[in-house]
């Protein structure tokens, strides 16, 4: 089998297993955590489009995610927009518009300057959610969000909602894979590698970065909408800087520039933070330690780390890949 075909088979098998999981007697609690995993995998992939394929380390991804989530909450509680398609569209549009505004401000800078500005932008949006009590409910957030019907299906129950998130994830993954393999995606990679050369070749580097940011915002919005329905609640924590960092940690853990790897990153982070918060009050502290461990010992992510450990376990030596050297 060719490598490409093997991947397709593996992905299809993974998808089938994911489809069957709730029917195999997996406890509801874990189905719920897996639902969260799909949601965080989507937002992590949206960030990977920027970090891994465009070379932009965006610390405002949680703000875009949160704007999607707040769009659902405000749409539902104030304007009684609750049907699946209009709410999803609203969330995506709001997140994309926010990303487009962020892009105008942040893309005036590059590299580390871009990081600092996106941190500030994320914090400003967080501040709005935190303080604009009459619209956002402030620290108490907004409750009373009801999961919609999808066509004829009632997905208000956990299992049904699991499928909504799984399918959304699959669609986002396929769309993003098509995008990064398209001529547009190739230009993005060129921009990541050598912006200067791309400029010399006549590409408008700024425009490509701007488009990537806006598109990425749309995907973050999808995840935000799903997250609001999942929790049936939105609060400012959803768009805090800590959330942005957590998304970035998922991307690093999953493997920057892999897209599919984000599933594993999300799986680890979601399960770990839930298990930790059940075991100890000090799980934020443990999370901080985990950040240290990930960036110092697994900068290539699980997709590099796990095969290496596996090979070491079998007593084989791993060849050093070109990327690492």
């Amino acid at each position: 089998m060719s490598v490409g075909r093997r991947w397709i088979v593996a992905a299809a098998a993974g998808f089938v297993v994911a489809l069957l999981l709730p029917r195999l007697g997996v406890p509801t609690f874990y189905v719920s955590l897996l639902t969260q995993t799909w949601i965080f995998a989507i937002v992590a992939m949206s960030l990977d489009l920027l970090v891994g394929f465009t070379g932009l380390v965006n610390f405002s991804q949680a703000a875009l995610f949160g704007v999607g989530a707040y769009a659902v909450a405000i749409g539902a509680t104030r304007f009684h927009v609750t049907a699946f398609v209009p709410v999803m569209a609203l969330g995506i549009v709001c997140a994309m518009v926010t990303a487009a505004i962020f892009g105008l401000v942040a893309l005036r800078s590059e590299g580390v300057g871009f990081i600092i500005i996106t941190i500030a932008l994320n914090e400003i949006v967080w501040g709005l959610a935190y303080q604009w009590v009459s619209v956002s409910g402030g620290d108490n957030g907004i409750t009373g969000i009801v999961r919609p019907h999808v066509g004829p299906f009632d997905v208000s129950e956990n299992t049904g909602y699991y499928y909504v998130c799984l399918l959304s994830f699959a669609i986002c993954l396929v769309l993003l894979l098509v995008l990064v393999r398209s001529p547009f995606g190739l230009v993005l990679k060129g921009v990541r590698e050598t912006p200067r050369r791309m400029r010399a070749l006549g590409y408008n580097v700024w425009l490509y970065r701007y488009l990537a940011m806006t598109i990425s915002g749309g995907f973050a919005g999808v995840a935000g909408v799903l997250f609001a329905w999942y929790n049936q609640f939105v609060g400012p924590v959803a768009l805090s800087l800590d959330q942005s960092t957590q998304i970035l940690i998922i991307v690093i853990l999953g493997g920057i520039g892999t897209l599919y790897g984000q599933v594993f990153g999300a799986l680890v982070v979601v399960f770990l933070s839930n298990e930790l918060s059940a075991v100890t009050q000090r799980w934020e502290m443990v999370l901080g330690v985990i950040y240290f461990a990930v960036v110092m010992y697994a900068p290539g992510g699980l997709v590099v780390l796990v095969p290496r450990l596996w090979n070491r376990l079998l007593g084989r030596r791993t060849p050093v890949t070109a990327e690492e050297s």
Partner: protein
Amino acid sequence: MGLQFYVQNALGGLAYGSLLFLIASGLTLIFGLMRIINLAQTAFYLLGAYVGLTLVAHGTNFWLASVAGGAVTMVLGLAVYSAFLHRYHADHLTSLLLTLGFALILDDGVLAVWGGDPRSIAPPPGLAGSIHIGTLVFPEYWLAVIAISFTIAAVLFFALQRTMLGVMIRASVDDEEMARGLGVDVNRAFFVVFAAGAFIAGLGGLLGGPITSAYPGLDGEITPLAFAVVIVGGMGSLTGALVGSLLIGLVNAFGKAMFPELSYFTIFVPVALIMAFRPQGLFGRKL
């Protein structure tokens, strides 16, 4: 809105801005020298406040307690710097994530030790009153904070411009490789700047306490302002940090007074304007 409104908010803004300077000066210097975005800088402030208020509760003099808060913060910051951070100063993403992990640990540690209840901090005796001029009222402590911050700013400027160490630090900022080549101990410059940044932020904790009080999450509320200061003033510029702090302090004070729910959004305006017309910041150089 009468004169009282403007004067009061201007003074409040300047006082808050000078506190911001105590945080942002470290942020901008550490960044300018080491390219480390230190997200733990506001957590340093919080830690300094808690250490200080505990000492005050045990009868220590207010000023001594603030210095002690700064010292404890500095020791802790330097421990993390020497153990982990110094290895990654060229890699801004790794160092940023390390400081964020450190901030999480610090925040949670503060919560574990001091609990979640907000603590108000009384101004030191002798500065608790206010000065009345006509109908205008000036809290004495606000004026004291402004005076202290400007003194610290003056000391920092003097140290950077007029001492041998300052010359070495500036040389390392301008061209690290060349400075090393000329025998400047760049690593020592890094160490000193990180220490100074952590110390001043920790010192600011108790000094700012009577204005901001202390509670878990306070650092998160200050972070957007501190970053806005660095963006507006220019990354790596001490002058920029001073001007930016006062500017953001004023914008924040008037924003809070006029649009209480949107005060963070008013910060966005100077940030966006700076990015549009002068992306390197008021006093920054092109990165």
